[in-house]
């Protein structure tokens, strides 16, 4: 027979895994699904969870008071999502007791990122160069796209730390990208400003948000799907606006 686990422990564990997954960019339907599954595997069948991109409401057996967790900053860390998913698999398979699960999740919560910031910046700048070629740019656009894409990504990270306002960082970063692309072009680096700018803007594009929004809408999570869609649209608009201003200056 399984040892009886206390209700508070289950609630704590579910909220912890839910928060980790939501903060690191999992789809909301996956978060809800994971939480109710874990609760069920510890014998709490009537768990209810309601997840939006900014918070989690979780209640067990409807007698217990509901718990609320607010998630204010979200990043993208898919390996955290993967590890949390594996832990939840182990729990539902019955391979992991509640203390061990809690320990592993706390460790995961405190673990740093897999790829350091310089690696990410290098990846962003390489991706920018490759995108310039993919969008039918000339090879002479490769280097300027790498430069402005890398600088734009650095700017994005820096501004995200500096300003609390969400879409302003994207706006400024794309403005810098546009300005830099035109400057490089005037120094004879690159042949087409369009291709350079499109390529270097790509790391800022809200691709994860778009796919998540679609998947959430499909799963019937209309609130999360629409709010993520709105976030994606506003981000795209901020990027477009930044580039547009660069265009009107140069």
């Amino acid at each position: 027979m399984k040892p009886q686990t206390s209700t508070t422990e289950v609630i704590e564990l579910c909220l912890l895994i839910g928060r980790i997954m939501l903060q690191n960019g999992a789809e909301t339907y996956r978060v809800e699904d994971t939480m109710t599954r874990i609760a069920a595997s510890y014998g709490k069948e009537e768990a209810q969870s309601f997840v939006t991109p900014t918070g989690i409401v979780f209640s067990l057996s409807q007698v217990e008071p509901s718990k609320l967790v607010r998630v204010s900053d979200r990043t993208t860390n898919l390996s955290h999502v993967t590890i949390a998913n594996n832990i939840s698999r182990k729990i539902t398979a019955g391979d992991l007791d509640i203390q061990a699960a809690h320990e592993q999740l706390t460790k995961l919560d405190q673990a740093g990122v897999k790829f350091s910031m310089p690696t990410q910046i290098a990846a962003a700048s390489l991706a920018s160069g490759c995108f310039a070629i993919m969008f039918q740019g000339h090879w002479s656009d490769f280097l300027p796209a790498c430069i402005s894409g890398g600088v734009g990504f650095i700017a994005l990270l820096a501004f995200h730390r500096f300003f609390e306002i969400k879409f302003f960082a994207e706006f400024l970063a794309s403005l810098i990208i546009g300005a830099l692309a035109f400057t490089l072009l005037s120094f004879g680096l690159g042949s087409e400003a369009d291709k350079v700018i499109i390529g270097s803007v790509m790391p800022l594009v809200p691709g994860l948000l778009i796919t998540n929004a679609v998947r959430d809408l499909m799963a019937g999570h209309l609130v999360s799907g629409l709010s993520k869609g709105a976030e994606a649209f506003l981000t795209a608009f901020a990027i477009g606006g930044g580039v547009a201003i660069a265009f009107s200056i140069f």
Partner: protein
Amino acid sequence: MLWVEQLITSFIASAAFGVIFQAPKSTLFKCGLVGSTGWIIYRIFVEWDLNEITGTFVASFVIAMIAQFFARKYKTPVIVFSVAGIIPLVPGGLAYDAMRHFVQNNYETALPISAKAFMVSGAIAIGLVLSEVINQSVKKIRKRR
């Protein structure tokens, strides 16, 4: 030559996006594979003058199918693979073009381009939805047996 360079750049770009999204190291190669497959399908449609929107739809469908296959095989959330593949298809270029025309007061040229960008995003969504539908019906049929 053109195809080789498209293949290599799309592979690198998708894998690099895996790095930006902090995907697990073991999945980076597969992310690149998914991304370049989708991009080549899209380019075939564009190059042979078939419809660009149909191309986006087919590419995103194939990407989602491969991503779901990988997800089952390696017990990893689908999103790890599908995101890297979808990103090249996102109509960033079109949206940019539309925005540029808007700023330069060419509303007549900007509107059809934005409509097209909208259609392309819709095509991505429909591709994802269709693969999900197929995936779920396969699961249900298997369960019934």
